[in-house]
């Protein structure tokens, strides 16, 4: 089992999937910062003063972390960042559900948004599983670092 999970091709696929999803989510939010700020506001959990700066910064961290994950730059560190985000989102969506908030998730920006719900939690958990796999079995294969040190042929 461990061998399958730590298979370098599977890890590459996980990295690509997670990376692209994060980039996609980030681009939607970067394109519409005020929409994302409103989404954060609707969660009613942060003081209004911090909302905009968070709406400006978070999507870029997601974007860079996703990009680095795809190209294999500092994989473990970026997996750590992404996992932290996923745990945070999971927490936020869950408590919003318990608080009975009928709000737009803001997960992928507000375009074609979906409301917070069980479906979002399941999506989040699946992504988190990918993130944990990448974090624990961080393979240097198909990464910028490995190309630099070994050359493409030796992979």
């Amino acid at each position, binding site marked *: 089992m461990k061998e399958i999970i730590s298979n370098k091709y599977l890890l590459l696929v996980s990295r690509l999937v997670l990376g692209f999803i994060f980039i996609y989510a980030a681009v939607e939010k970067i394109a519409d910062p005020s929409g994302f700020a409103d989404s954060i506001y*609707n969660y009613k959990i942060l003081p*209004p*003063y911090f909302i905009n700066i968070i709406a*400006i910064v978070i999507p870029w961290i997601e974007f*860079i972390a996703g990009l680095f994950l795809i190209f294999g730059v*500092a994989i473990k*560190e970026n997996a750590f960042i992404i996992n932290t985000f996923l745990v945070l989102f999971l927490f936020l969506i869950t408590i919003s559900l318990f608080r009975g908030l*009928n709000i737009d998730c803001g997960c992928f920006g507000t375009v074609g948004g979906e409301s917070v719900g069980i479906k979002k939690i399941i999506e989040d958990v699946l992504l988190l599983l990918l993130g944990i796999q990448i974090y624990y079995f961080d393979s240097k294969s198909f990464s910028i670092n490995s190309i630099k040190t070994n050359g493409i042929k030796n992979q």
Partner: protein
Amino acid sequence: MKQKVDFKVIIVILFASSILGILFNFFYSKGISLIRKEKVIAWAKDSIVNGNVESEIKDKIISGVKKKENIQSKQLSDGKNKDNQILLKPAFIYLKQASTLFKSKKAIFIDARDKWDFADGHIPNALNIPEYSFDNSNPILQTIPLDKTIVTYCGGDDCDISSKLAENLFGLGYKKVFIFFGGWNEWIKAGYPSEVK
């Protein structure tokens, strides 16, 4: 070979991304201010809801929102005819005002929630246009004349899809669009009639 996470790298990534984000936001045409400005909620006065000449709209504080008075509507030339007054943007209404409009049957209520919430219960005769899938060519919209009074609502006072829907409708040319702030929760709490479909 197991490696430990290098927190220095994480801090560098977070810091660099943040700077990038702030710089981008600075030059981006849709950029927002770093500190969120207080949101002003425009409340419609009874007179405008009922279609009288008076045209002022009051603003009120909601969760840290500043109190401010705004003139939200203007009167055309003579100001005598009640049809001459127009809203400059959708205005919020209270439960009482919503109920008045409901009873008078002057307004069309539009539920902005998804079809499942709508099916569980809604204001009688309300139409359902989920905000998530709002489309200008929605067949329901073809049946509503532009001069009709519209009231949008969603789950309660903590959802914003009713105001988003109201803005969309306003953009389409509907000129009398109100947002029932308390929404479905307040409606049902007050014991007003509901309909399940």
